[in-house]
C-alpha cells in the first residue's frame, strides 16, 4: 500500500480524500494555489505545498509544478480528484513516467473513452445501445421515411456539418419529416455549404442515468448500480439519487452489464462512470459518454452500497484485487444528494463567493455532509461555488426526502447567498416528489414559475 499520496485538487474532494487516507494510515500531501492558503484541506493534510497563483492554469493545471511538488514530498501516488487534470491522459502518463502511480485508469483507456466519437464507436462495437439513427446522410425522402419509421417518431433531423442548433428540426410524422428535411437541407446548404443531414431518435422526455463501475488490475470489473441525475439546470446536475425511481430492475441489470462490457472493452481499471440518456417514452437507454474519474456525486453510491469509493480507488491503484464480486453488491435503501452552492438562485444562480459568517452543517441519522467549509472561511472567487454536498439516506425515497427536508432546514449558512432555499422549494414540488422530472424540467418549467 502507498505510504504517501499527493492530492492534485482542492475544495471538498481534497478533504474527502484526506479523510479516507487518514483512516487508511496513508500520509497526504495537498498542493494548493495561493487563493487556497486558508482552505480546510491545507489545514488537514500532513504536508501542503503551494504550487502557484490563483489562476487554475498556473496552479491546479500546472503539471510541472505538481510533479515538482510530488518529487519534493516523495509521494507514491497522485489522486487527481475530479475536474482539473483528472481526465488528462497526458498528465496520467507523465505521473507514471515519474514512477508515481496515477490513481485512475491507464492513459490508453482514458484516450479510448475520453473522445466522445471514439467512445461512441466503441460502445456500438461492444453492443451497448447508442442513439439509433441513419448510419450516414440520408439519400432521399423515401429512405428518410423508412429510417424514421424504423426508429419511431419523433426524430431529429441534423445537418452533419451543423452545430449550435442550426439546421436542426424535430419531426413527429412522415409529413413533418419531409418538410423538415427539405428545410434543414436548404438551411444547412446555405449555412455550411453542405446540405447533408442525418436522422436520429429524438428523446423528448429524458432522464440522465449513469452507472458507477470499478475495476482492479486483475480484470475484475463490477457495476455498483446507477445514479439518476435528471434534475439539472443548464446541464449542471443539481440533485442525484440512487436507485433511479423510473427504471425497472431488468433495465438496471442491462445497463449495469452494458457499462461493465464497455469498460472491459477499453481495458478499464479503477473507478469510472458510464452515462446514459434514458428515453421515458421509448423506455430505452442510450450511451452518452464515460467519465474516467470519480464523480462529484459518488457519495450517493457510497450511501446505498456502504462502500468507500476513494478507498477502493486507492486499493486497486496499489494493485489489490477488488474485495467483492458483482453478486456481493446489493444496494440498500435510497440516497439523494443535493449540491449546496454559494449562488444567488433567485438571480440567475449568479455565483456569490465570500466569507461564511456562520457555517453550521446539519447532522443526524442518514445525513452526510461533504464539505471543505467552516465558519470564517472565505470562498474564493476563482473556482467553483460549491459549499457542500448534502447526502441523505433513508429506507425508501419518501423517507430520504423527509430527512433531506429536515437537514436543509437545519443547515445554517450566513454571509453568502446559497442554493439551500432552491432545494427546499425543489424537493417539495409535487412534480419532483412524483418523479415527473426530465433533464429540461428545471430550465423550462420549474425556474420559469
Amino acid at each position, binding site marked *: 500500500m502507498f*505510504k*504517501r499520496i499527493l492530492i492534485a485538487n482542492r475544495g471538498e474532494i481534497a478533504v474527502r480524500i484526506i479523510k479516507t487516507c487518514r483512516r487508511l494510515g496513508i*500520509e497526504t500531501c*495537498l*498542493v494548493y494555489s*495561493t487563493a487556497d*492558503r486558508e482552505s480546510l484541506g*491545507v*489545514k*488537514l*493534510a*500532513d*504536508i*501542503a*505545498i*503551494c*504550487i*502557484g*497563483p490563483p489562476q487554475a492554469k498556473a*496552479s491546479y493545471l500546472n503539471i*510541472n*509544478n505538481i*510533479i*515538482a*511538488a510530488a*518529487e*519534493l*514530498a*516523495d509521494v507514491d501516488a497522485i489522486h487527481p480528484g475530479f475536474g482539473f487534470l483528472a481526465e488528462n491522459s497526458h498528465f496520467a502518463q507523465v505521473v507514471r513516467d*515519474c514512477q508515481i502511480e496515477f490513481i485512475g485508469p491507464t492513459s490508453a483507456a482514458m484516450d479510448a473513452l475520453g473522445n466522445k466519437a471514439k467512445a461512441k464507436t466503441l460502445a456500438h462495437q461492444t453492443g451497448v445501445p447508442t442513439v439509433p439513427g441513419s448510419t450516414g446522410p440520408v439519400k432521399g425522402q423515401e429512405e428518410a421515411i423508412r429510417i424514421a419509421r424504423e426508429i419511431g417518431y419523433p426524430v431529429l433531423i441534423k445537418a452533419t456539418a451543423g452545430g449550435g442548433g442550426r439546421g436542426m428540426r424535430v419531426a413527429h410524422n412522415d409529413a413533418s419529416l419531409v418538410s423538415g428535411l427539405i428545410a434543414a437541407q436548404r438551411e444547412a446548404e446555405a449555412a455550411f455549404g453542405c446540405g447533408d443531414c442525418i436522422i436520429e431518435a429524438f428523446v423528448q422526455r429524458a432522464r440522465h442515468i449513469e452507472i458507477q463501475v470499478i475495476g482492479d488490475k486483475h480484470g475484475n470489473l463490477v457495476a455498483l448500480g446507477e445514479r439518476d441525475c435528471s434534475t439539472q439546470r443548464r446541464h449542471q446536475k443539481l440533485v442525484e439519487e440512487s436507485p433511479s425511481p423510473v427504471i425497472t430492475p431488468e433495465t438496471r441489470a442491462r445497463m449495469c452489464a452494458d457499462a461493465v462490457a464497455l469498460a472491459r472493452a477499453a481495458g478499464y481499471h479503477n473507478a469510472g462512470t458510464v452515462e446514459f440518456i434514458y428515453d421515458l417514452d421509448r423506455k430505452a437507454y442510450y450511451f452518452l459518454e464515460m467519465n474516467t474519474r470519480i464523480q462529484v456525486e459518488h457519495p450517493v453510491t457510497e450511501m446505498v452500497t456502504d462502500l468507500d469509493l476513494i478507498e477502493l480507488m486507492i486499493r486497486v491503484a496499489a494493485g489489490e484485487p477488488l474485495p467483492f464480486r458483482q453478486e456481493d453488491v446489493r444496494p440498500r435503501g435510497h440516497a439523494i444528494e443535493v449540491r449546496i452552492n454559494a449562488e444567488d438562485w433567485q438571480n440567475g444562480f449568479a455565483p456569490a463567493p465570500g466569507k461564511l459568517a456562520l457555517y453550521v452543517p446539519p447532522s443526524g441519522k442518514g445525513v452526510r455532509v461533504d464539505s471543505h467549509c467552516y465558519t470564517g472561511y472565505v470562498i474564493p472567487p476563482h473556482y467553483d461555488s460549491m459549499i457542500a454536498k448534502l447526502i441523505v439516506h433513508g429506507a425508501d425515497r419518501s423517507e430520504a426526502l423527509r430527512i433531506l427536508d429536515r437537514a436543509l432546514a437545519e443547515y445554517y449558512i450566513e454571509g453568502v447567498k446559497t442554493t439551500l432555499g432552491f432545494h427546499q422549494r425543489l424537493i417539495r414540488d409535487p412534480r419532483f416528489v412524483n418523479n415527473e422530472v426530465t433533464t429540461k424540467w428545471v430550465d423550462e418549467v420549474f425556474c420559469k414559475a
Partner: protein
Amino acid sequence: MDIKILKDITKLMNDNDLVEVEVESKGLKIKLRKAAAVAPPPPPSAAVLHAHPPLPAPPAPPVGPLPAAAAAAPAPAAAPPARSGDDPSWKPIISPIPGTVYLKPNPDAPPFVTEGSPVDPSKVVCLVEAMKVFNEIKPEPGVSGQIKRICVSDGQPVEYGTVLFLVG
C-alpha cells in the same frame, strides 16, 4: 506576576513610542506596535507556509518519514517573516516552482549573489531544482537594485511563492 514587569514594559513603551505590546512566554510570542505604524501588509507571497511539518529536506532519504501525527504543530514559515530592519519598499524575488534552492552554481563555486550584490532582471540569483531541472531564477522585470536580504539557505526546499531574496 510582579507589577514591576508591567512598569518596565510601560517605560519601554513611553521611551520608544510604542502603542501596543503583547508578550507571551511559553513558545515566545512578541508583538510591538509603534504609534505611526499601521502594520504594513506582508509582501504578497512572504507568508508562504507548509501546512504542518516542514518539507523533507532533499536529497530525500529513501523513505522520508514525516511526523504525520504532529498535525497540530505550528506551521513554520517557508521564508522568515519580515525582520525589524526590513524596509517595506523592498521587492521580493519568489520561487516560481516547488523545488530545492541552490545559491551556488556548483558546490565549490562562490554564491551567485551575496547581500549587497547589484541585481537586475538579467542576473541569475539562484537555481531552483525540480525534476532534475535546474531552473535559473532571475528578478522579475522592474525588480533591480541590491540584494538586501537572502531569505533562504542553500539546499532548502521551497514552494511556489517562497520569498528567496529581498531587493532594494
